């Protein structure tokens, strides 16, 4: 009887242990996007000056698409990194920011204090964020020349990661 109980216990515990062991192999901070390798969802949004901007306008050029908000602390940290990259890759890479659950006044104040690295597009009801499967901010999507999402960074973008991805895209 004891052997039967042990065998059944092992049968139940083994898959759980294997599952746990496999989980250690992945980074819990990385949220994989099912959109990697697929066409970037198209959008047409208004910037802070009510100018219409479309993703299609940047066709043929790699795009760094960053979802951010003025209330987001990591967004403050990554703003300088994005501003620096936008300056160095000007003309080669398109840098676009999509505002997540925020209002234009605060965005203008944020940009006035910390600098501006690209258009900040308003996203009514978060439709574009939902289309990109955004969980929170900041999240950055990298779109290649063909309009395919090739990489995603969850959380603040650091200089080294940004450089590596951009070099791969160019």
């Amino acid at each position: 009887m004891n052997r039967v109980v042990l065998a059944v216990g092992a049968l139940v515990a083994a898959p759980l242990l294997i599952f746990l062991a496999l989980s250690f192999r992945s980074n819990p901070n990385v949220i994989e996007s099912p959109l990697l390798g697929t066409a970037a969802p198209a959008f047409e949004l208004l910037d802070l000056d009510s100018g219409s901007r479309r993703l299609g306008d940047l066709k043929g050029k790699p795009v760094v698409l960053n979802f951010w908000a003025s209330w987001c602390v990591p967004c403050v940290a990554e703003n300088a990194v994005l501003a620096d990259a936008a300056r160095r890759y000007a003309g080669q890479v398109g840098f676009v920011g999509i505002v997540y659950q925020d209002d234009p006044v605060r965005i203008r104040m944020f940009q006035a204090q910390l600098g501006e690295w690209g258009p900040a597009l308003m996203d009514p009801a978060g439709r574009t964020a939902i289309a990109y499967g955004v969980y929170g901010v900041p999240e950055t999507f990298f779109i290649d020349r063909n309009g395919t999402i090739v990489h995603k960074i969850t959380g603040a973008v650091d200089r080294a990661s940004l450089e590596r991805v951009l070099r791969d895209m160019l």
Partner: protein
Amino acid sequence: MLFAKTTGAVGAALAALVVALIPMAASASGSQASADLERIVGPPAGHVLVGRGLEEATEAVASLMRCPVCQGLSVATSDTELARSIRVQAQEMLQLGYTQDQVLDYFEYSYGEFIRLAPKPEGFNLVVWIAPGLALLIGIGLVTLRLRGQRPPTPVEASVPSPEDSELDTYLSQVRREVGPSGGPGAGGAES
């Protein structure tokens, strides 16, 4: 689930009205979103829903989706801005005649299967559906085995003499022979 089904010309007219009214289809970004909708889940495959039927269908589909920024809450029960946006968008899709499956497929496209509170019963997911039943059966089997082991002996089993009983019988017969038919050792007079 109560769906307000419409057919023929009435349905077409309602669909046109809904498309004209909802902001998603009316705005510039909405037309892009509509194009993406078609690309991802195809044309609407259901009936245009309105009124109470629409509310119930929205509630039903929202209760099947996980709020992406919550801990264990559905889109229906969460009050976060993201959950509210997903609810609104789901309702707009249902208004346009998309089915519940199409709505779920659309959000799954961008959020992955994580968005589904109940994973699809296919592939590895089958473990989730089968394991609880299997575990229950194994549990019942173990309990049954254990109970059988503790069952009191039946009368038939009790009447079968054990080896110990046979040995005792041998000694008992020997004692009876030595003592004799009259009873105890003192039956034939006491020695002095």
